[in-house]
């Protein structure tokens, strides 16, 4: 009934509206007709909405007869959404209702289309709430931006921003690797000689500092700033933010590089022995261990778009891995020498690599095609891409930042450059900040790079200003929304496709996964009987009763067919014989 009522209601409303119309005035005539011609549908639509509007309309008319003060909405209808914005939130192609479609199909398609359109519109509308713009650096005439020093920038900008340019002089345990937490609030630095420290870098508040008394190969934050992983000389260790050792994961040995997949809660590690391992940090289980057979793995990056791990190898190839496959998804030859570093951009479209051949290459990894390459005199030892697509490359003790490198045209000169004291060991952009962190032999330097960070953050996903409670809440939600490792693949959109594999193939996969054939016949197992009836002989007899069942069936069938055929033949011959009879034969006895 509820479904019926609204229609009735609307119709009654419309009638009422028509009745309530004030008597026509001579001055109204032209205007009204205009209006009716212009937007008859809109009026109808509005009529159903509420009656308040009509009352608002009437009052001024009564008050002032001589004025044409009919108050009308200067912006009728919904607020228009710019086409560009709409385009931004377009998801896939629209589906049209095919001609001659059945009712159910029509309903399904139209409803889903309406829903997706509504969602798109709303998203485009709410895009308004992302007001921040990215910054940039602009030089004077005849001035290259790369000649502007960090000190100048720090002086020019406001104090808080200026304080983001700083360096930590840690010459004792250098060179340093570093990692920013996902919110960009916390910094983790790990010195080669065992010094590990985590800092709330904006307040310069030291959370913990320790020396693990072992070589530190890499450091990585886990899903929150409460835990981090340290790849030490032999094993993988996990500490909390106070520096208390939580786990020593002995399954993961000789780890050189690590990557954390935040939506899967997976810590991927690449070891010196050529193993790529996945650790599920939510349950503490090893998800997959893949022997890459590619030698020492010291170049690693993740594709944030599809959580595929990219590994660089000494033979100039780059391989893409998922935990579900024992062989690389893709293997591409990128350099003539060993790959020194690689990084993938946020959207998963571009990959930037550098090799021993002193080249920097930009790949489109959707098509696995090189876009352009450039020659760096010293070659890049470390690469990092910012959220907004600024590339930083470490060449010796110089950090260069390139702008628009992901475009189609190659760049000729860097956007910014900065010289440091020691050899650069680690590079990372701070999320949601215009800051590039550099770990080097003499410590850590934070460098201002205008326009590096994403100005608008999603507070439900990564909130740089989140409180302790918010972090807890986020952790629970994130765990609930955890993506299973099986869904990692080159094409994440595959999940929304219909699996069109044949039954045989699916069955084969099932057999492989289960280790046995669920559709196969079970071997006959005679029941144990009591009172001496389960003797070996009796069991044999019982077995023989059902032995070769399928074969017997076949034989039975074939025999039956043969008999039938014979019967038919016989009948035919009989008929033939009868056919020779004359009509008078029936009187013969």
């Amino acid at each position: 009934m509820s479904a019926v009522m609204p229609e009735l209601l609307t119709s009654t409303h419309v009638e009422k509206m028509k009745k309530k119309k004030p008597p026509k005035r001579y001055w109204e005539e032209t205007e009204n007709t205009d209006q009716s011609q212009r937007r008859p549908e809109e009026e109808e639509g509005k009529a159903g909405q509420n009656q308040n509007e009509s009352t608002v309309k009437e009052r001024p008319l009564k008050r002032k007869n001589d004025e044409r003060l009919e108050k009308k909405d200067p912006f009728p209808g919904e607020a228009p959404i710019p086409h560009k914005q709409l385009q931004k939130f377009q998801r896939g192609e629209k589906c049209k209702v095919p001609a001659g479609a059945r009712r159910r199909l029509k309903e399904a398609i139209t409803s889903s289309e309406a829903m997706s359109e509504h969602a798109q519109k709303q998203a485009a509308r709410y895009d308004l709430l992302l007001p921040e713009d990215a910054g940039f650096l602009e030089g004077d005439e005849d001035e290259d931006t790369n000649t502007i020093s960090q000190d100048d920038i720090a002086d020019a900008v406001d104090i808080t921003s200026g304080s983001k340019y700083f360096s930590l002089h840690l010459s004792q345990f250098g060179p340093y690797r570093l990692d920013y937490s996902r919110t960009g609030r916390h910094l983790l630095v790990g010195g080669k000689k065992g010094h590990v420290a985590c800092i709330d870098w904006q307040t310069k508040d030291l959370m913990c500092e320790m020396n693990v008394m072992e070589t530190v190969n890499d450091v990585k934050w886990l899903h929150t700033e409460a835990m981090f992983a340290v790849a030490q000389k032999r094993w993988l260790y996990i500490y909390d933010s106070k520096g208390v050792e939580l786990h020593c994961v002995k399954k993961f040995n000789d780890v050189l590089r690590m990557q954390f997949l935040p939506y899967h809660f997976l810590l991927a590690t690449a070891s010196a022995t050529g193993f790529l391992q996945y650790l599920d940090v939510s349950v503490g289980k090893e998800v997959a261990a893949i022997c890459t057979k590619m030698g020492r793995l010291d170049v690693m990056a993740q594709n944030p778009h599809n959580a595929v791990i990219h590994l660089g190898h000494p033979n100039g190839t780059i391989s893409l891995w998922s935990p579900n496959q024992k062989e690389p998804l893709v293997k591409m030859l990128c350099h003539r020498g060993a790959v020194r570093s690689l990084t993938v951009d946020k959207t998963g479209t571009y990959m930037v690599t550098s090799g021993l051949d002193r080249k920097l290459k930009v790949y489109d990894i959707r098509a696995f095609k090189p876009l352009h390459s450039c020659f760096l005199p010293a070659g890049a030892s470390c690469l990092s891409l910012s959220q907004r697509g600024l590339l930083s490359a470490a060449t010796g003790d110089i950090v260069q930042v390139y702008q628009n490198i992901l475009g189609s045209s190659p760049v000729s000169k860097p956007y910014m450059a900065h010289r440091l004291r020691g050899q650069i060991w680690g590079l990372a952009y701070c999320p949601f900040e215009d800051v590039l962190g550099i770990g080097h032999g003499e410590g850590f330097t934070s460098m201002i790079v205008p326009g590096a960070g994403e100005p608008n953050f999603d507070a439900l996903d990564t909130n740089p200003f989140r409180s302790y409670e918010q972090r807890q809440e986020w952790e629970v939600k994130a765990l609930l929304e955890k993506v299973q490792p099986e869904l990692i693949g080159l094409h994440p959109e595959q999940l929304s496709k219909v699996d069109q594999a044949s039954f045989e193939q699916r069955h084969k996969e099932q057999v492989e996964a289960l280790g046995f054939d669920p559709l196969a016949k079970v071997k006959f197992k005679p029941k144990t009987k009591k009172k001496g009836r389960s003797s070996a002989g009796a069991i044999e007899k019982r077995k023989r009763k059902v032995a070769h069942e399928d074969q017997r069936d076949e034989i039975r069938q074939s025999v039956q067919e043969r008999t039938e055929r014979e019967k038919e033949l016989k009948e035919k011959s009989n008929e033939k014989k009868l056919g020779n009879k004359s009509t008078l034969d029936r009187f013969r006895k």
Partner: protein
Amino acid sequence: AISSMGSRKRKKQNERSEASVQVSEFFVNAEGTGEKVNLSDLLGTVEKTSGASNKTKKQLRNLQSSKETLELPLNKQQTEKIQRGIAYEKTAAEVSCWRNIILQNQKAEQMVFPLNQESPGPKRVEQVVAGWKVQTPLEQEIFRLLHINSQPVDDPVLTPVEEQSLKAMSLEEAKIRRAELQKARALQSYYEAKAKREKKIKSKKYHKVQRKAKCKDFLKQFDEMVKTNPEGALEELKKMELSRMEERMSLKHQNSGKWAKSKAIMAKYDDSARKAMQEQLQMNKDLTQKIVVPSDDEHESNEEGLETIPDFVNDSEPVIDSVNPWMRGQLTHEEPEVSCVTTEDVQTAEEENEEEELVGEFERKRKLRQADEEDLIPTEEERKRAEDVVEVSDKEEEDDDDDDEEEEEEDVSEFNTLFRLMRSEKTLEGSNQTREGLNTPGQEDEEGLLNEGQIRVRNIEDLEVLGEFVDPQPIAEPSLPRTAAVEATSEPPYKKKREIDLKEVLTKEAKAVKVPFLPTVVDEEERDEQISIIKEAFAGDDVISDFIKDKSKLEAAGRPEVVDLTLPGWGEWGGVGLKPSRWKRKRFRIKTAPPPPRQDQKLPDVIISENRNASVASHQVSQLPFPFQNTAQFESSIRTPIGPTWNTQSVVKNMTKPKVITKMGAIIEPMCSGNQQGAITHANTNIKNNSTVYTWIPPATAKNIVFV
């Protein structure tokens, strides 16, 4: 029910004392009871009688001469099937009025139950007060307690106890009252003692007399009561009405009891027995007589009086007159028949009298009933009458039954005719078939042979037709090897092509980048070192050739293997140094279809794994869901994500809203429109035959629909 399930059914066996075809219930040989009355039997007498009209005689004669037999009624299964069909159509038509509502509900994005929800918010005081009822157990308990203690519920001014205390009596009054009470108690004890004494008396006559006296007393009292206490009289009247109803329901005084049956046998010979029976009937009549309330319309009562009075008079008259219906002058429409009978049985007057006595009684009863039940529906009356007159005429009963079933038969008759037609056709066909079957077998054989011939001819034709298709086949077959050859020839260039073009891939014009700072330490040694490293890296085209090798290996693995089934020495000479001929090698090599082209076919420096990602497949939709016709439609329908990560909150809420919302604790009543009481939708499940009967009322009709 349980005892009946357990016990075995026993068949009552009739005792048989004499050898005869028919055994009457009195174990006496009754000849001719089972035989049917033939038309000819009746005809003979008709011819003799002078009273019968010529017309009827003619009709009877025609009837006799006609040889058409009546159609057999359809058998039970068929009639039931037809009836079921009709019933189904009817109900389907009635049920179809729900169709639009159902469709609408299916279409609706969300349904909220219960449907007719009360509007939230404050209500008017009158609504609340009028509709208030004791609902919760707590309230019920409270009200029960209030009632028990006789506390005022509505307007608490004074409790009854308080009122009593206010009406406190004086001493004298109290004394008088006490005396009265004492007297009443004494009287009651006397009365009780008397009743006990009287109850002990075993004489039936005494009790009879007592009862009659009481009756008279009662009547007198009643008369007085009517004048003095009309309310009490009305109550008495109600009691009488109740007794009347009881009497009408029971067969207590209708000569159907054990005693009455024994008396019926004796009535032939004993006057007193007859009288007793009559008395009983009289009792029945008296009891069942409608009590006339004077306030009711006089017209009816007058009519009743007119009809009832003569009967009453007849009863009071001497026995013979009273029982003889033929003497009353109120003959029914069965006159001619009866007259016939009378003419036949003139001789045995006495027997007839006694028989007629009974018949007359029945007749009278019927009359009374008629008078009583004038307000009933005519059909029912007829049926009742038929029941009463069962003993009088079997024929009539049949007629009546016919009347009842007429309506159904009207419906069925059409189908009957249809079926008859069909059956006749079938029989015709059957006869044809049999006739065909009787035909000479030679003919059939010939037909069969001809058929075979045709097939052969067709085969030839097919061959001819096939020839057109077959011809191109040989052309097509060589084409395969040819393409293979082409492939073979094209392979070398292909191979060349596949070698990674260094210019294209690795040494793609790399632009040198100007760096503002040069590396700090650019020692000559280091530079040499770097150069050496680079040289190491470039040592030969190791990297590239390795990669190509890898790729070609994978490609080879992906290609289907050619199965070579040549057997050396089979069909030709074999031995050391002898190879099977080329033709043979070609002939026995089995090639399977090539797999689809690799994804990396056109990317020389990329190897893409061709393995299917089975882990995702387990999460994928493997079969196209119902309304969709192709995968594109379905995929586009789920292309928009519903999570809060990608959508605004309102959209998420809208997208994930449940299809049905029910209110916790609210009773969801079946949907109805039109009926105030609501559609009664209930199911009666019969466990015995495992069937369920659903009863419900569609909108705007008051009729119940029952379907199984």
